[in-house]
């Protein structure tokens, strides 16, 4: 399936501000936001995911992080990490 049709169901949802797919080092591969925001989000969220993942694994080494949702005043960031990539979606539900 093409990238357009893969990401578009999500992008078409109400309030979705952007989708970023980054590789495991935090370098963005695909994004629907502008470059500077993309790089910023990818870099910062990469660190957050690493920290969260190490936290989970420190508590129980058999456990692993599967999904993260960060709810803020203005929007919600959903992060789905994997060993090869991670998917970031930013949504403002009250839009």
């Amino acid at each position, binding site marked *: 399936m093409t990238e357009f049709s893969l990401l*578009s*169901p*999500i992008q078409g949802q109400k309030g979705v501000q952007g989708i970023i797919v980054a590789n495991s080092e935090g370098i963005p591969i695909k*994004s629907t936001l502008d*470059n500077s925001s993309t790089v910023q989000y990818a870099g910062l969220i990469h660190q957050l995911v690493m920290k969260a993942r190490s936290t989970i694994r420190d508590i129980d080494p058999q456990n692993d992080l599967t999904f993260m949702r960060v709810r803020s005043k203005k929007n919600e960031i959903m992060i789905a990490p994997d060993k090869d990539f991670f998917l970031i*979606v930013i949504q403002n539900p*009250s839009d």
Partner: protein
Amino acid sequence: MSATGGKEEGKRRCPLLLRPASRTLNTSVSHGGPRGAHQRSRQTTSVLGCHSRRSFSLGGSKVLEKNVVQTPRQAVQVFDEENNDVTPQPLYQADPGAVQPMLFVDEISVGSASDQPTATGSFTLPFSRSVFGSSRISSQSTTESVDDEDMFSKRDIPLSFPDVKVKKDTEKEQVTEDMLKDITEVFISETDTFSLLDMPSSFVSVDADEAEATIARNHQYEEVCRNRVSRDKTVERSVQTLTGTTKNKHVQSNGLMVVDADVCMSTATNVTICDMCEPLSDAEQEETAGICNPVKTDHAEGVTYSSRGADRSVSVGSTATTVSASGSLKEVDVKALNAEMEWELIMLSETFQLYLQTVERSILQNSFHPQLAAYRQLPVLGDPESPVKNEIVEQRTGDTDGGPSLQCLWVFSCELSRGRSVSCMTWNRKNPDLLAVGHGEFNSGNQKPGLVSCWSIKNLKWPEHIVHCDSAVTTLDFSANSPSQLAVGTHDGSITIHNVHSQDNRSHGVSSRDSPNRHLGPVWQLRWTQQEVSSTGEEKVEALLSVGADGRISKWFSFKDGLDCIDLMKLRRIQNTETKAGGKRTEMMAESVLTALTPGLCFDFHPTDSSIYLTGTWEGLIHQCSCSNSEQFLETYRKHFCPVNCVAWSPFNPDVFLSCSSDWTIQLWKQHHLKPVLGFISAQKAVYDIKWSPKWPTVFGAVNGGQLEIWDLSSSILDPVIVQPAAPGVRMTSLLFSSQADCVVVGDSDGHVTVYQLKNLNVGEQSQVDVLEDLICSAASR
């Protein structure tokens, strides 16, 4: 040691010193002449004793004061108490000699000193001052050299040799003049280990004469050891480990050149995207692409969804063409290729698809948060920050004041199903969030292909699974034993069992199309039931039963590649002849040669005894039959004079059932009573579907063409408690109650499935079953 090391150049005459650290022993050799055994010994001796356990070199024979001795250039001689010459011998001697029991440290000849500067130059640093540890020779020869080693190592003797430095300078001059011109060859080699002191212990036999004396002496010695004042002056010493210098590593990569491409989503663009869809999709998907075109007026998301109808298999080659169409970043750089390849890999991975699905559900959960919370019967916590939510909260509180009402929570609808009438709906037996909806138009002349869409509460925008059928879908049922099996009955009489889990939309399930016994007319209802195997009475085998327009009730089982059936019952047409003598009726089974069969429209199995079932026919009769008797009906209930559209046993009261018919009425029956107990009529429209509420025994819902009615027998038997009119131009066609929530799901002729929540249905406090019983009794007695 360090000091001496530094000065070794200066002290040519000085006797030898340092040995490399690897040596087991170190000796430091004094510098300068002897001033006496005492002073000398301190500097001369020593050992960096740590390595050797066996022996240690001792310098002077006495304990040393902390004097710093300067200078003397003469050879050093060390004497011990008995004035034995115990001067350390040079250790670098080619022939170290045999291991001797006594210390031998010799004076180091001056001649050898010439070798020193080069050879020993490197040894200086590691030898700290501790080497100049005291050389206490204890006359008591103990082989416990550990103590001594400690002593040696812990001495911290500040050394300063100012004069020596002066000498060093003068000496140095000599060196430079003479020595540097020559090329000196230096041979550094290891010599053998030699012990400087070896005092083997002597053994005395217990029986010998000296034994007692020896033992006494030993004891005495121990006493002395215990009692002596510790001469240790322990000094704190710290060791510093050298940390290597950190090395910073920088990595650089070329920056990505990014070009933003905006896509303007106007209607014109919609068309272009549609056009792009077509070459990508398979031939089979032309249908869905065809739907694109009429939907031009929709906003962007509509179009994007239609393209989703294509298979989820990834076509790698086509990526290049569509990247330009999307609004994503355009990577012009060479490095972009790597990113593309990575992207391809990611797109292909299953986890990515899964994550997309999860993220989509999360997004939808956020968007529909209040409705989902209402469905799940959870309180919606007001968002303290946003002022928008307050409206919803207020509206909600307003609702509780009014009477019983329905609140629309959401509508399941998508492009695929728009325009296709809903014919049947069913919940999954195992996962109560999964709803299967069958679409099919079978009242009209043209037969459009049918569709089954499986919706999940978690994704309100797009069905989880879609199955295209060749003809209109008339009935659906999920299996209880294998919850992903969905049996679909269609207008052309075939029954197909699909697996809802399978990702491939094109796979056809097991079908009865090729069976010789298949239904000749539309299959009106299907049901999976647990049938007890009669022999053991314990096993519950699940069987698929169907009732069709050809008047047969059949039990299906899988046979070869398809399904085959055996007939459980044939619905014979019963001709009712009434005698004129009023009231008396005689029935005559029309046993003519051509036994006509009447189409069966619905059936329902008894909640407790699964071999008894009711079936409603085209004639308006309701027959009660048993699975074990395929010839005769157990009972026949007559009241309706139009086709009975639905029968339903009450889940709470096993004797009671409801039936609805196209003659505008709903009848409440009690088993074995051939006349209905109660009849309900509200609108002058054919009632299509009727269902009992799973939660309240006296509540049931009915849907006729124009409205949804919720009846509550405990409050009124004449009028429905809630009436929800259908949207204009739309007919409501089917109804389901939700088992988890106080919700009602209604399907209509436009393909929409609406979820309503029942509010304020103030069903009485007392046990509802009793109420129903009372009602029935009172009604029956009338």
